[in-house]
C-alpha cells in the first residue's frame, strides 16, 4: 500500500470519528431540546411563570366616623414600621462616603425619635435574623425623610393606623382601634359597616421588579368600608365637654356627664363625659375613663325624676299644679326611718308646683301615696326607664326598676323621687324629651346610618314616636318646671336673659356596698325655650367635694343652655309666662 493510500485512509478515519462526535453532540442537543421544548414544556413554563409572578395587597380603607356635618371624628392615617435585616446590617457607602451603622441609626433617631441604642439592641439581639423592628408608627413625612437616608438594609412595613382628628372631643362615643381591631364604642358596635377588606393583585415582574405588561390581574377586589354618620354636633360636643371639665374641676368632682337632645327629632347632639381620653393615645388611660358613661353608667337619679312622677300624677288626675298642701318637714317610713328634705324651704304651705319647684322629698312622698306602684311603674316604663334606649350603645345599661308587685315598703315611697331605682343619663334625657315634645316620646338616635362607598345610605330605622302623657299634662309639667329657675332651687343660678327655661335639679345619695354615703351625685335636667322646647339638656356630676347641692351643677347647665340658643340661633322668648303659684 502506497504511503498516499495510507494517508488517505487515516484522513477518512479522522473524518469519520469527527463526524461521529458531531453526530453524537447534535443528537444530545436534539434530545435535550425535545425534552425541554416538548416533554417538560408545560412544567418548565409553569415554573418560569411562578418565578415571575408575584402578588401585592390592594389596600382598602376602613370607613370614617362622621358627625352630623360630615366632619371626620375617626379617619385613617398611613403609618410605617421601620424594619431592618440584622444579617445585612453593616457599614455602607453612600455618595462615596462610608456610613457607620451607629451613624445611620443616629440619623433614624433624629427623624423618628426612637433611641439609637434601642434600635441597636433590636438589631444585635439576633445578628443572624432576617427581620427586626427598628421603629414603629412613623408618619408619612418621617417615612419620606427616612427614604432619603438611602440605607440599604432598612425596610418599611405599611400600617394603616386609625386617626381621631378631634382627639378627646368624641372619644367616648367613637371608641378606638387596638392592634387587633376595634375596642370600644361606635368602632366596635358598627364594625360591620366600617370594616374594609383588602384585595389581592397578581402580576408578573421582570428582573428589575417592573410589572410585565398585560400580566396584572385583580385576584380579589379591595372593598372600602362604609362611613358611620352620627347625630353629634362636634362643636357643641366640645363646648359641653369644656363646661363639664371647668365646672367639674371647680367642684372637685370625680366625674361629670352631659347630654343634649334635639326635642323634635330625638337626635343626640352632644353626649360628653369628663374626664375623658384621647383615642389617639389611650395606653395609659384608666379603664374607667374609656367609656360613654351617659349610656353605660346607671345611677340613682334623685330629684330629676320628680318631674316624671308629677307627670304621672297629673295625667292620672291625682293632683293639679296649684293644689295646696301642708308639707311636713319629715315623712315617716316603716322601721323608724324617715324622709327629710335637703333644705328647710321645701316644707310648709306649698302647692304641687312648689313641691316640684323646691324639690320637696316629703311633699313628693305625700303625693305619691295617691298613685299605685303598678301605675307609677307603668309611667316610668313608658318614659323609657328600665330598658336601654333605642340608641343601643355598646354596653348600654338598662337601669333598674323594682317589680311593682314585690316592691319593698321603703322603695315604694323613695322611688317617686329617684332613690331605690336607677337610670342612665340617656334614659333621663329621653324622658325629658318626651315632656319637652308635649308628651310624645321620640326614641333617641345617635347614629343616622351607614354611608356605603357606592353612595347608598343605610339609614338607621327611626322608631315610631309614642304618646306617653297628654299634651296638656306635658304643658303643665313644663310650666311647673319653669318656676324652678325663677323661684325654685335654681333661682339666681340659671338665667339666660330673654329666654324662658324649664329645669329640675337632682341630688342623689350615692350608695356604696349597700349603704348610702355622704357622697352625692348632683344633676340638672331641663329644656329651652320653655314656650316651645327645642333642646333638652341633662348635666350631672358625681361626687362633688366643694359643694354637694344640686344647684352646684348650674354653671355648666347655664353655659350649655346659653351656648345652645346662640349656636342654633333660637329666637328669644316674646311673652311672659303665666306660671302656677308655688306657695299659698
Amino acid at each position, binding site marked *: 500500500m502506497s504511503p498516499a493510500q495510507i494517508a488517505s485512509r487515516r484522513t477518512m478515519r479522522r473524518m469519520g470519528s469527527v463526524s461521529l462526535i458531531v453526530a453524537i453532540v447534535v443528537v444530545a442537543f436534539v434530545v435535550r431540546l425535545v425534552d425541554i421544548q416538548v416533554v417538560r414544556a408545560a412544567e418548565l413554563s409553569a415554573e418560569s411563570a411562578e418565578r415571575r409572578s408575584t402578588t401585592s395587597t390592594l389596600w382598602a380603607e376602613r370607613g370614617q366616623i362622621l358627625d352630623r356635618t360630615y366632619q371626620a371624628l375617626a379617619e385613617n392615617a398611613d403609618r410605617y414600621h421601620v424594619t431592618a435585616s440584622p444579617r445585612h446590617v453593616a457599614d455602607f457607602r453612600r455618595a462615596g462616603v462610608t456610613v457607620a451603622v451607629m451613624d445611620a441609626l443616629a440619623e433614624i433617631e433624629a427623624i423618628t425619635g426612637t433611641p439609637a441604642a434601642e434600635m441597636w439592641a433590636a438589631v444585635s439581639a439576633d445578628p443572624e435574623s432576617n427581620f427586626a423592628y427598628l421603629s414603629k408608627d412613623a408618619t*408619612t413625612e418621617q417615612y419620606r425623610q427616612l427614604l432619603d437616608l438611602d440605607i440599604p438594609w432598612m425596610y418599611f412595613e405599611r400600617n394603616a393606623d386609625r386617626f381621631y*382628628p378631634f382627639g378627646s372631643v368624641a372619644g367616648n362615643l367613637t371608641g378606638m382601634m387596638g392592634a387587633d381591631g376595634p375596642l370600644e364604642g361606635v368602632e366596635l358596635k358598627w364594625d360591620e359597616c366600617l370594616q374594609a377588606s383588602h384585595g389581592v393583585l397578581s402580576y408578573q415582574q421582570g428582573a428589575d421588579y417592573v410589572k410585565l405588561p398585560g400580566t396584572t390581574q385583580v385576584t380579589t377586589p379591595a372593598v372600602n368600608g362604609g362611613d358611620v354618620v352620627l347625630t353629634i354636633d362636634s362643636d357643641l360636643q366640645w363646648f359641653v365637654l369644656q363646661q363639664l371639665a371647668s365646672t367639674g374641676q371647680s367642684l372637685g368632682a370625680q366625674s361629670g356627664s352631659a347630654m343634649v337632645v334635639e326635642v323634635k327629632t330625638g337626635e343626640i347632639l352632644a353626649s360628653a363625659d369628663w374626664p375623658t381620653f384621647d383615642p389617639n393615645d389611650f395606653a395609659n388611660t384608666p379603664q374607667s375613663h374609656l367609656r360613654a358613661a351617659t349610656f353605660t353608667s346607671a345611677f340613682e337619679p334623685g330629684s330629676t325624676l320628680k318631674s316624671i312622677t308629677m307627670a304621672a300624677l297629673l295625667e292620672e288626675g291625682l293632683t293639679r299644679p296649684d293644689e295646696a298642701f301642708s308639707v311636713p318637714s319629715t315623712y315617716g317610713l316603716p322601721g323608724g326611718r324617715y324622709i327629710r328634705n335637703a333644705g328647710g324651704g321645701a316644707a310648709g304651705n306649698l302647692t304641687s308646683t312648689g313641691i316640684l319647684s323646691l324639690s320637696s322629698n316629703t311633699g313628693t312622698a305625700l303625693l305619691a301615696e295617691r298613685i299605685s306602684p303598678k301605675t307609677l311603674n307603668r309611667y316610668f316604663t313608658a318614659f323609657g326607664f328600665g330598658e336601654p334606649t333605642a340608641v343601643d350603645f355598646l354596653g348600654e345599661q338598662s337601669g333598674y326598676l323594682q317589680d311593682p308587685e314585690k316592691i319593698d315598703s321603703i322603695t315604694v315611697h323613695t322611688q317617686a323621687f329617684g332613690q331605690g331605682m336607677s337610670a342612665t343619663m340617656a334614659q333621663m334625657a329621653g324622658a325629658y324629651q318626651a315632656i319637652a315634645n308635649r308628651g310624645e316620646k321620640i326614641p333617641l338616635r345617635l347614629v343616622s346610618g351607614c354611608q356605603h362607598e357606592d353612595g347608598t345610605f343605610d339609614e338607621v330605622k327611626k322608631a315610631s314616636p309614642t304618646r306617653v302623657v297628654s299634651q296638656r299634662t306635658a304643658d303643665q309639667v313644663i310650666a311647673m318646671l319653669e318656676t324652678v329657675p325663677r323661684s325654685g332651687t335654681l333661682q339666681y343660678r340659671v338665667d339666660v336673659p330673654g329666654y324662658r327655661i324649664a329645669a329640675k335639679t337632682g341630688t342623689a345619695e350615692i350608695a356604696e356596698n349597700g349603704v348610702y354615703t355622704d357622697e352625692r351625685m348632683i344633676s340638672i335636667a331641663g329644656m329651652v325655650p320653655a314656650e316651645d322646647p327645642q333642646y333638652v339638656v341633662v348635666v350631672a356630676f358625681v361626687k362633688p367635694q366643694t359643694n354637694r347641692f344640686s344647684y352646684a351643677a348650674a354653671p355648666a347647665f347655664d353655659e350649655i343652655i346659653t351656648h345652645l340658643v346662640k349656636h342654633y340661633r333660637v329666637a*328669644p322668648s316674646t311673652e311672659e309666662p303665666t306660671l302656677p303659684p308655688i306657695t299659698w
Partner: protein
Amino acid sequence: MSALTASIAPTARTSPRLRALPQARTATPPKVSYAVATLVGIFAILGGQLMLSIALGNGAYAIQDLERQLAERHRDLSIVSEEIGAMQDPQTLASLAVSLGMVDDGDPAYLRLSDAQVLGSGEPAVAGSTTVVAVVPGEEPTDISAVATSIVGQDVEGESLSAFAALSEDTSEVTAGAMNTLEGVDSTIPVVAEQPAPAAKTFGGDLPSPTTH
C-alpha cells in the same frame, strides 16, 4: 402506461430524424431587487417587532413611574388631610381663638328695631373671660403655638395670616397692633340715640324674626 407514451413510441420508430435544437436561451440572472425587497421586508418585520416590544417595555416603565407618582400623591393627601383634621379640632381652634384675644360673647342680645330696645343682657363680653381647659387628666391644653407655627410655616397665596404670625411662640400672647380700630366702619353705623337703650329683661311686643347667618 399512459396513452401519451403509447402514441409517441410508434412515431419515434418510423421517422428518426436529426434536427438542430433551437439555441438555448441564456439564463437571465435573478433580479437583485426581489432579494432586496424580501430582505427589507424581513428586516422591517423584525424591526417592527422590536419597536413594538420596546414600546411595550417602555409602557411598563411609564406605568411603573405613574403608579409611583400616584402613591406619592396619596401620601401627600394623607399628610394634608391629617393636618387639616387636626386643625379643625374644636379644641385647637378654640385655643387659637383665645390666644388671639377672642372671647365667648356671653349671653346673647337682640336689638328690637321698633323701639331700639335691647332684648337680652346686652352686656359686652369681658376680655380674658374665656379659657380652654384640658379634658383629659394629665394632659395639657393643646399646644397652640406649635399649631400656629405650622400654619404660619405654610405658603398661603393671597391670604394673610399675620395675626398668627404675631403669636409669640413662647408666651402665646398676641401682639397685633391695629386690631382694635375699625377705621371706615363707624361712619356706616347710624346714630339712633345718644344714650344706649337700657337692657330689658322683660318680654312683650313683636320681635323681628332674626335671620342670622
